[in-house]
C-alpha cells in the first residue's frame, strides 16, 4: 500500500518542514551574529566586527544557490561522482600544506584570489558521499567482520590523518564521528565491535602521547579543570558559561548580553555564538534553538527511513550526523561539558566555508527527501 502511493507521486516536491527549519536557524543565526558583532567595548573592535554579518549574508546567498544546485541533480549521480570528489578533496587537503595560510599555529586555509577557503570543511561532504557509496555497495545481510569494513576505514583515516596534521582536532573528530555514525547503520559482528572499542581504548593514550599537539592537550586538560587556567582556554569556557547562566529564564534581551557586549566572550561570532544567543534570549529562546537542531537531526533520520535506496538513506544519515555532532560539540563546549575544540555551530557561526558546506549538505538531504 505504502509503496503504491509513493510510486504515484508526481515528480520531486520541496520538503517544506526541512526548508522551514533551515530558514528558521539561518534567521536566528543572522540576528544573533548582528548582536555578537555590535559590541560596546571600543570603537576599534566595533569597526572590525561591523561588516561580519553582512559578509555572512553573502555567504548564505551563495550557499543557498549552491544548495539548490545540489538538490536539483538527482542524488544517485553523486554515487558515481563520489570517488572523484573524494580524490579532489584529498588533493586540496594536500595543497593546504603547500599553499596553506598560517593562522594561529595551524594551516587550514587556501587563498583563492581574495577568498580564503577551508578544504577540510568541504571534505566533510565528500567523505559522507564516499561512505554512503560504501554502504550502498555492501548490501549483504549477515553481520560484517572488521575486514569487511577495512575499505571504509581507509576512506575515513586518510582525511583524518591529513587534517590532524594541519593540525585541526575538531574537524578530524567530526570526520570520525560522522563516518562512524553512518557505518553504525550496518550490522557488524559483536566481536568486531568489541575489538574495535578495545583498539580505540588503547590508541587514545597513544594518540595523546604522540599525535596530539601541546595546545590540543592543553585544551583538554583545561576543560577537565578550568579553574586551574583562568586566563587561557579555561577562561574562555568559564566566561561562556557565565554568559549562558546570565541569560536566566528570559534572557538579557537582544544586544543586551553584557558578557558579549563588554568583550568577555572570545570568538563570539565563530566559536561562541551559542553563548551570545543564550545570554540574549535566555532559557526560553535557547530551548527553541536546541529544538530546531534536534528537529533537523530527527528529520534527517526520518528522510533516511523514507529513502528508496541505501545510498540515499546513508546520505541522509550522514548529513544528519554531521549537523548533530557539530551542534552537540559546539553547544557542549559553550556550556562547559565538552572541551573547547573549535567546532562551529551549523548555520550560526560566522564563516564562508562552514556555511557553504552546511547548506550544500542540507541540499543533499533535501535532494534525498524530494526523491523518496
Amino acid at each position: 500500500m505504502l509503496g503504491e502511493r509513493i510510486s504515484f507521486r508526481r515528480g520531486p516536491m520541496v520538503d517544506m518542514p526541512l526548508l522551514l527549519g533551515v530558514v528558521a536557524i539561518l534567521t536566528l543565526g543572522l540576528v544573533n551574529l548582528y548582536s555578537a558583532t555590535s559590541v560596546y567595548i571600543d570603537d576599534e573592535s566595533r569597526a572590525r566586527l561591523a561588516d561580519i554579518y553582512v559578509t555572512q549574508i553573502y555567504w548564505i546567498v551563495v550557499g543557498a544557490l549552491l544548495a539548490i544546485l545540489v538538490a536539483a541533480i538527482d542524488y544517485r549521480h553523486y554515487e558515481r561522482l563520489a570517488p572523484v570528489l573524494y580524490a579532489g578533496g584529498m588533493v586540496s587537503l594536500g595543497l593546504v600544506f603547500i599553499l596553506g595560510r598560517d593562522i594561529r599555529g595551524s594551516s587550514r586555509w587556501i587563498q583563492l584570489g581574495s577568498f580564503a577557503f577551508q578544504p577540510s570543511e568541504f571534505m566533510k561532504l565528500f567523505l559522507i558521499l564516499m561512505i554512503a557509496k560504501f554502504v550502498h555497495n555492501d548490501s549483504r545481510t549477515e553481520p560484517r567482520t572488521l575486514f569487511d569494513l577495512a575499505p571504509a576505514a581507509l576512506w575515513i583515516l586518510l582525511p583524518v590523518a591529513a587534517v590532524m596534521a594541519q593540525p585541526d582536532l575538531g574537524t578530524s573528530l567530526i570526520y570520525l564521528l560522522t563516518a562512524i555514525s553512518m557505518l553504525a547503520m550496518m550490522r557488524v559482528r559483536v566481536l568486531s565491535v568489541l575489538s574495535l572499542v578495545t583498539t580505540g581504548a588503547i590508541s587514545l593514550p597513544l594518540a595523546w602521547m604522540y599525535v596530539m599537539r601541546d595546545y590540543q592537550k592543553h585544551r583538554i586538560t583545561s576543560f577537565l579543570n578550568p579553574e586551574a587556567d583562568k586566563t587561557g582556554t579555561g577562561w574562555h569556557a568559564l566566561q561562556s558559561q557565565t554568559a549562558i547562566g546570565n541569560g536566566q529564564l528570559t534572557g538579557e534581551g537582544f544586544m543586551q548580553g553584557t558578557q558579549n557586549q563588554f568583550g568577555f566572550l572570545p570568538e563570539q561570532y565563530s566559536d561562541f555564538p551559542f553563548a551570545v544567543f543564550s545570554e540574549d534570549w535566555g532559557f526560553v529562546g535557547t530551548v527553541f534553538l536546541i529544538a530546531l537542531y534536534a528537529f533537523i537531526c530527527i528529520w534527517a533520520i526520518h528522510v533516511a527511513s523514507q529513502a528508496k535506496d541505501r545510498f540515499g538513506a546513508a546520505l541522509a544519515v550522514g548529513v544528519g550526523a554531521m549537523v548533530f555532532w557539530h551542534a552537540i560539540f559546539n553547544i557542549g563546549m559553550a556550556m562547559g561539558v565538552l572541551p573547547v575544540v573549535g567546532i562551529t555551530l551549523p548555520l550560526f557561526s560566522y564563516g564562508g566555508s562552514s556555511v557553504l558546506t552546511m547548506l550544500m549538505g542540507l541540499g543533499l538531504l533535501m535532494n534525498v527527501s524530494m526523491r523518496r
Partner: protein
Amino acid sequence: MLVQRSDVGEFRQRYRWLVLVTVLAFGILIGRLAQLQLIEGDVHRAQARKNIVRERSLATTRGVIRDANGRVLAANRPSYSVHITPSVIDLETTWPRVLKVVRLEDFERAAIEKKIAEIKALPKDDKRRSQQILLKVDVDRDVVAFLETHEKELDGVEVTPAPVRYYPYGELGAHVIGYMQEVDAEALERLDGRGYRAGDHIGAIGIERRWESYLRGQRGWRKIVRGVSRRESNAEIDAKYLEEPRRLEPIPGRDISLTLDIDLVSSIDKAMRGQLAGAVVVVDVRTGRLLAALSKPSFDPNVVSGGNGVKAVREAFRRLNSDPLKPTLDKTISAAYPPGSTYKPFTALAALADRLTDPDREVDCHGGFEYGKRFFRCTGVHRKVNLHSAIVQSCNTYFYELGSRLSIDRLASIGLDFGFGVKTGIGVNPEARGRMPTRSWYTRRYKEAFRGGFTLLSAIGQGATTVSVLQLALSYAAIANGGTLYQPQVVRSIETSDGTVVQDFPPRVRRMVELDQDHLSMVQSALAGVVNERDGTAYKERIPGVDMSGKTGTAQVSHVTPRGVDPDRVWYFNRDHAWFAGYAPSKSPEIAIVVIIEHGGGGGKNAAPVAMRVVRDWEKMKEKRVSAQTPPHPPGKRGSL
C-alpha cells in the same frame, strides 16, 4: 520498487536507536542549560555584573592647617600633569604641537621619543600598548588651557589634575608644619588595612605626620560600568547594571588650627637673616603654647612634597642630606646643645634653695677659679661680684665657687624640676631629651673616679649638660610665671571642614616647681639687669622701649680652640654657640623666647639682638591687634570721606 525497498531494510531497526540517541543527547544539553540558566542563574548573573562593574575611588581632600590667627599654612591646590598615550599619538602632527607648548629639555625629549618608538613597535595585541607615559608635571595654566581647548585634535594627549599640598609660607615653620611624601613599600605594609595605596602621600614630619590620621580624610568610591564610562551619557546603562549603593561620598580631612603665629615666625626669620644656622622658640608664658619656632637653615616643603615633580623631590633631598648645616633637622625640638651661661639662673636657684649662699655675699673674681690642681677660667676679671652682679655680668668664677659648694646631683635635680633631661611631650617630631649629668652618669661614662671639676662645669651649663631649645624656653617661661612648668602645645584645636570645632586643647600644667618666691624675684631682677643695667651682657644690644629680661650664653663647642686666636677667625664648626634666653615684658611676662645661633660666637653680641628684635616686633603686632579689635573710627563714618 519493492526490491529496492528491501535493500534499506537492514537499516530499519537502527532508526529508532538513532532517534533515541539524538533526543537523549539534546536532552542532556537542555538539562545542562537548565542547570546553568535556571538553577545557577543568579550566580552567573552576579559574576557577569562583577565583570563589567568597576569601583572608582573618589579622592578626598586633606585638611587645612592654619595658624593661631586663621592664616592658612598648608592647603591643597590642583596640579596638572600631561600624559601621553604613545600608541595613539601622531608623531607627525600632534607631537610637534604638544612640544611647542610643553617645553622639554633636549635630553628629556629624546628619552620620551625613544619610549614612544618602543611602545609603537610592540605587536598590536600586546597589553603594554595601552600604557601612558608622563610628559610633564605641574604645567602652567595656559598650557592646560591650550591642551584642553585643542583636546579633540590632540589625540593621545591627556591632562590630569591631581591635588598637591601647598604651603603658602614656604620655608617658614616648615619643621613644625611638616611636608608630604609618597608612601613607600615599607609604610604600605605597616599601614596595611588603613586604606593607603601606592602613590598616596602621607605626612612625613611635623604636624603633617603626627596628625596624619585626622588630616587625611577618607576616600569614597563610585561604581562605574567598565569601558563605557567615557562614552556619552550613561544614565541608562548605569541604572541597569549598577546596584545600590552606587556611591560613597568621601569624607574630607579635619582642619587643624595651630598655636603658631606665622607673622611672628616671619619676623624671627627676618631677625635671623645673616645667620647661617640656629633656632628660635617663642612660647606663651601663661599657657606653654608654642607661638613661634624657627629652625635654620630650613627647606621648602612645597618642593619636597612633590609640587614640582618627583625629580625635583629627589634633587632637593640630595642637596638637603648633604648639607653640613642639617636643614632637615628640627633644631628647636630634635637637637640638644650645651646651654652655657643660660643655665646659671638654675644653679643660683639651687644654691639659694639649699641656703648654701647669701645673695649679698661677694666673691672676688680675678679671671678664674682655682680648684684642685686646675684653674677654671672666667670670661674676664669681674672683681667683687654678688649673686645679682654675677648673673648680670655672667661671671663664671662666682658660679664655679657655687659649684664647689653644690653636688652635681643637686644641679641635675633642679634641672629635672624645670623640665630638662626629659621629653617635653610636645608630640611633634622626635624630641631630644638633653642631658642632666649625675654622679652615677659620670662613673658609668668614664671609668676613672668622679672629679669635682665636673660639677663646676655643670654649674655654668658646660661639661656634659645639654638642653633643647624648647626645654630652655619652657624653663624660662616657668621662671617668668612664678614656677609653673607647662606642657608645650602646637595644636590649638581640630575642626571639621565647615569650621565646627571637634576638639579643643586647653593648656596643661606639667608641674609647679617648688620655689621660694623671694629667690625667684632675685633671679628675675638679675635677668632684668642683664638687659637693662649698664654692665649687663646684653645691655649694648638693647632696643630702647623694648621691655624684656633674659640671659646671654656662650656655649663652648670644642676645647681645641687655640688661645689668643681672634674668635671671629676660628674655623666655623669650632666656634661657640651663641645663646639668648629670656622673656617679655619684664613685669608681667607674656612670652618667653630662646635664641641659639649655632657657632655664632658670643651670646650677647650675636643672639641677644635677634631676641630683642623679635620681642620688638611682637610688641608691635600686639598693639596692632589690640587697635584692630577697637577701631578708632566708628564704621558708619566710612562713607563720608
